[in-house]
């Protein structure tokens, strides 16, 4: 059996010391070890951002694409090569801003992939602008000196409304708990969404407090109404699996229709 460290590549991360993304990397390699995956059978697909650099640090296949488009690449890959374990990942800016439309449609399409969003409520790589999950009055960015003045995006509630069949939240301060969630997410048939509170020590040092306010909730339900009620009362710092309700995965297999003679229809 391979150990978690066997799933690390020899590429050195570019992240700032103390960045939450290191713990997410650890959780992923732990989960891979627990899943007893052959390194070559997984593919990590990402967009652009600090978090999206992660695939190169894992001993597996990877695809580091363009900003916001990890989900379509991952879905196309999974549909074309269903035997692979495909995990899309990236940041909150990548996933909810530029990639917001893909997020919604990935939830409803239900291709069997896992999507991990390392949410630090900020654009790390472009040096600290507000992202869709930034608190309304966070005024540390030159681009929004009064704060974004917009209500933050609610990733888990939106995932539920859009039809995701697995919804969970983890915290980078708890890589073991996160590894367990990722293990479950990989096992889940269909689109599994995992929001990870992953601190940006450089642009949001206040996120160091997260470790004191996150709280474990044993609320996993298959009832969308119960899940909605929970998520509407959520303070954003609950962690655990909130919703799990498998439904048919895309592509649906149909009985073979028509002939494989694709030229037939052209004859007079």
């Amino acid at each position, binding site marked *: 059996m391979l150990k978690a460290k066997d799933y690390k590549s020899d590429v050195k991360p570019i992240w700032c010391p103390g960045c939450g993304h290191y713990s997410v990397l650890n959780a992923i390699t732990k989960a891979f070890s627990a899943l007893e995956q052959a390194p070559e059978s997984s*593919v990590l697909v990402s967009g652009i951002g600090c978090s999206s650099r992660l695939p190169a640090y894992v001993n597996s296949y990877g695809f580091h694409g*363009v900003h916001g488009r990890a989900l379509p690449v991952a879905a196309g890959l999974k549909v074309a*090569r269903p035997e692979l374990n495909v995990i899309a990942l990236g940041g909150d800016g990548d996933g909810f801003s530029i990639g917001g439309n893909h997020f919604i449609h990935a939830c409803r399409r239900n291709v069997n992939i896992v999507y991990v969003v390392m949410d630090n409520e900020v654009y790390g790589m472009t040096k600290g602008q507000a992202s869709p999950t930034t608190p309304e009055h966070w005024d540390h960015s030159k681009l929004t000196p009064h704060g974004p003045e917009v209500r933050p995006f609610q990733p888990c509630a939106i995932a539920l409304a859009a039809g995701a069949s697995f919804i969970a939240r983890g915290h980078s301060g708890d890589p073991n708990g996160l590894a367990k969630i990722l293990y479950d997410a990989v096992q889940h048939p269909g689109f599994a969404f995992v929001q990870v509170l992953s601190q940006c020590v450089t642009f949001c040092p206040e996120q160091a407090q997260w470790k004191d306010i996150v709280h474990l909730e044993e609320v996993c339900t298959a009832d969308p109404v119960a899940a909605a009620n929970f998520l509407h009362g959520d303070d954003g710092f609950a962690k655990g699996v909130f919703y799990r309700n498998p439904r048919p995965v895309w*592509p649906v297999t149909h009985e073979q229709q028509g002939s494989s003679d694709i030229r037939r229809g052209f004859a007079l």
Partner: protein
Amino acid sequence: MKTLTLAMTGSGGTGVVALGEMLLRSAARTGLFGILCKTFGPQIRGGESAAIIRFGPRPLASFGGEIDLLLVLDWTNFQRFADEIPLKPSTVVIGDTAAGARPASIPEGLSVASLDFTGLAQKMGSTHSNIALLGYVAAWLGCDSAQVAASVEQRLHKHSEDTIALAQQVALAGAELAGTTPIPIEPPMAEQYQGEERWLATGNQLAGLGALEAGVRFVAAYPITPASDALEWMAGKIESVGGHLMQAEDELAAVNMAIGAGYGGVPAMTATSGPGLALMSEAMGLAVASETPLVVLNVMRGGPSTGIPTKAEQSDFNLAVYGLHGDAPHVVMSALSVEDCHHVMAWATQVASERQTLVIVLSDQFLGQSIQVLAPLPTTGFKAALLSPEAEPPESSQMQGERYFRYLNTDSGVSPMAVPGQAGTAYTADGLEHSQAAIPSPKAADHELQLDKRERKLQSLADSDQWGLQSILPNARVLVLCWGSLYPIALEAQRLLQDQGVIVNVVGVRLLSPLPLEFIQQSMDAVDQVLVVEQNHLGQFARYLRSFGLSFVSYHRPGPRLFTPVEILQQVEGLNRA
């Protein structure tokens, strides 16, 4: 070759395009060849539409020019087609009695006969005057009632038996009318026909066929006119050969889905039109940088912006050739006729996979949506490899020490590509600049090496014998050089000129980038004068050729008016005078 062009117009669901298609099919059953161009206004349903069909004894890949016979079910909005239905003094016009007031734009001298197709259909309890007209014209073309009945059945196969039977009766009544009130023109004649197999196909369908036959097994789709019907045709077929088609949420998703599949070793494509191609440009650069095979079929329409979605133009040349950010060498090809859509897509599929790159194929609304009668096309022999994780890992010489060099600097520029599932070669494909070992790197040396490599791997393509098609005649003094859908039109201009004793060569460039400069230079050197023709306002291809130091006379004009052979002929005559 004697050919005949007829146009049919109508409004509000009179069914002229359906009529055109049934007529083409019936005539093909007698051995006639033909091509049908559909033209629509911007409305979704109803509104005006027109079909132009040209018939002749041999395969026809272009619309001729002036209209010999105009058939009118309804005059409403006829003037909207004034540009596309050029009448001449001898045009015969036959209208339905119920067609309404004849517009002032119909020249005074033209005789317009009125026949009661609506009444004929109504008498039999049908509202389908178009079917009565079908029977009438088909009889004049020499189709027997069984051929027409078969075409009606094929078109109406989703309707009840009663509906089909009634339509067939209405067609028969139309044919009887042809006996008493014939059309006063000599119909085109088929050459000896022994019932050889014939196809009826659009360029979009043939593009889909070429791609599937060459191995495409993943298609990502986002609807846009006039590319949608290529995707719709493939959707019905790809599953039966073991592939998948995904409808994406937008073009950004579509192209990235295709990239995901291509990275997985499954030959993949998407199809779009101008606005969609613009949205795809960022991800197309990703395919170039990450060396992922990708085919994008772009069926051009009038632009810029949403422009004229239902009609043809060749104005996406610049976007296709220059539209990527950074230095992003990629392949651009053009389809040189309806049937070449098949050939070029198959070639593109193979090139994308063997060179691990982006190939953009330019077609246009005319090629994509025209229906042509043609002899069955042979398969092309082009094939993209479906990469398998069971394959042998890249040779040890391509592994540097323990590490797999995905982006190894080889002589050919093509590096060994492993696919997920292969042990020992795990790597991260990257749009970020990277080292040969696929590790992100901002170093100048890595950047230069990878830029060189990506360009080098395409260069030898310019020597490919697939670079273009040409029709070379002894003693020609003039070359007509073109690309895309203008090739068959230029060929016809060549024949018209030959009849007048003017000998010209015609070259159609299939490979637009990298430019097959030597072949083009050779064909230019063989003549005294060169005319470059294209259907866009800026002369985009001409500007491109000039950037290679070539000189010639450029003739360009925008769509959507269909290009005609006579137009090219006149330009050649102008050259001779100058």
